[in-house]
């Protein structure tokens, strides 16, 4: 018999510490598979964030850094500028990337660093036990917005991909989801495309991946999927928002349509 689906080489066999049903694991696998399929594992250097995926260095079977909270894009910049022949990726949560690390992601994108950012948006701070993130949904209850996020006081969730899409510097920017098999299939394509573009030294690449946090959402795995579909998908539309091969006008138009959501 032929194995058509198995364990990717670019992951160690360590079991993750992620909660049951947490899609961090799925996303790790997509990254590892992409590195493997493109033959990049031996040149790859990953940057783990501070967040639930802080231990990512135990799971990826390639060279890794563990960065300070929010600073992964700066670490990747430093590494890539020193060794342009390496393949650099960061793996970051929404608190890490969109809150404390907002300046670093914005500027890495704007400088056009040839790195790949895997941005896991689960609308909450997972690791520290469920505080409000910049991507937390209006009305969503967290430990630091115990009465639900109130847009009048905390503002609306930040749509990072849309934000970065306004930058003039060429980039590959996509948003995908990770909660159903078909979403994973699309997500994987985007992740691989990002690494491919990096390997060709084309541009900055980032894939935002909508993810679940059953533990801090206080839901089962199945309920989480539903919550994501009902609350996050309408606000965080999926798609490729920017592609270096497409003209700005095209991307703007597509983004325009999606912004209506």
């Amino acid at each position, binding site marked *: *018999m*032929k*194995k*058509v*689906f*198995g*364990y*990717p080489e670019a*992951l160690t066999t360590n*079991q*993750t510490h*992620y*909660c*049951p*049903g*947490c*899609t*961090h*694991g*799925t996303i790790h*696998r997509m990254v590892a598979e992409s590195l493997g399929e493109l033959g990049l594992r031996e040149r790859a250097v990953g940057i783990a964030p501070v967040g639930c995926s802080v231990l990512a260095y135990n799971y990826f079977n390639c060279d890794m850094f563990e960065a300070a909270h929010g600073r992964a894009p700066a670490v990747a910049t430093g590494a890539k500028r020193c060794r342009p022949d390496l393949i650099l990726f960061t793996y970051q949560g929404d608190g890490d990337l969109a809150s404390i690390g907002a300046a670093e992601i914005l500027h890495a994108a704007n400088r056009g660093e040839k790195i790949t950012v895997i941005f896991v948006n689960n609308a909450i701070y997972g690791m520290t036990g469920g505080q409000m993130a910049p991507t937390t949904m209006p009305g969503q209850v967290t430990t630091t917005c115990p009465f639900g996020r109130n847009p009048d006081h905390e503002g609306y969730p930040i749509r990072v991909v849309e934000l970065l899409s306004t930058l003039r510097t060429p980039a590959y920017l996509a948003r995908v989801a990770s909660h*159903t*098999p*078909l979403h*994973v*299939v699309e997500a*994987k394509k985007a992740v691989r495309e990002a690494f491919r573009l990096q390997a060709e030294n084309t541009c900055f690449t980032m894939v935002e991946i909508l993810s679940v946090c*059953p533990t801090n959402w206080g839901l*089962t*795995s*199945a309920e989480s*999927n539903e919550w994501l579909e009902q609350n996050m998908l309408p606000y965080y539309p999926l798609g490729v928002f920017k592609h270096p091969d497409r003209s700005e006008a095209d991307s703007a138009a597509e983004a325009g349509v999606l912004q209506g959501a």
Partner: protein
Amino acid sequence: MPKIVVDKTRCKGCERCVEACPQSVIAMSKQLNEKGYFYAVPFDQPRCLGCMLCAINCPDIAIEVFVHGTQYQFIEY
């Protein structure tokens, strides 16, 4: 005939594979594994199409998929 193999020790019992399977091949065991989870079991293996959806959806890479010869692929992954 296609088949899946679940690594019982890796499984965290999240049931994502169960939800994913179009053929209802998988169900949860009534026993806990050593980590304390009710783990996934392919209790109706013959119905399996080898479509890989379960494996694709498993966050813990606890599922391997095997097929014989050529196989119609629903999805490209």
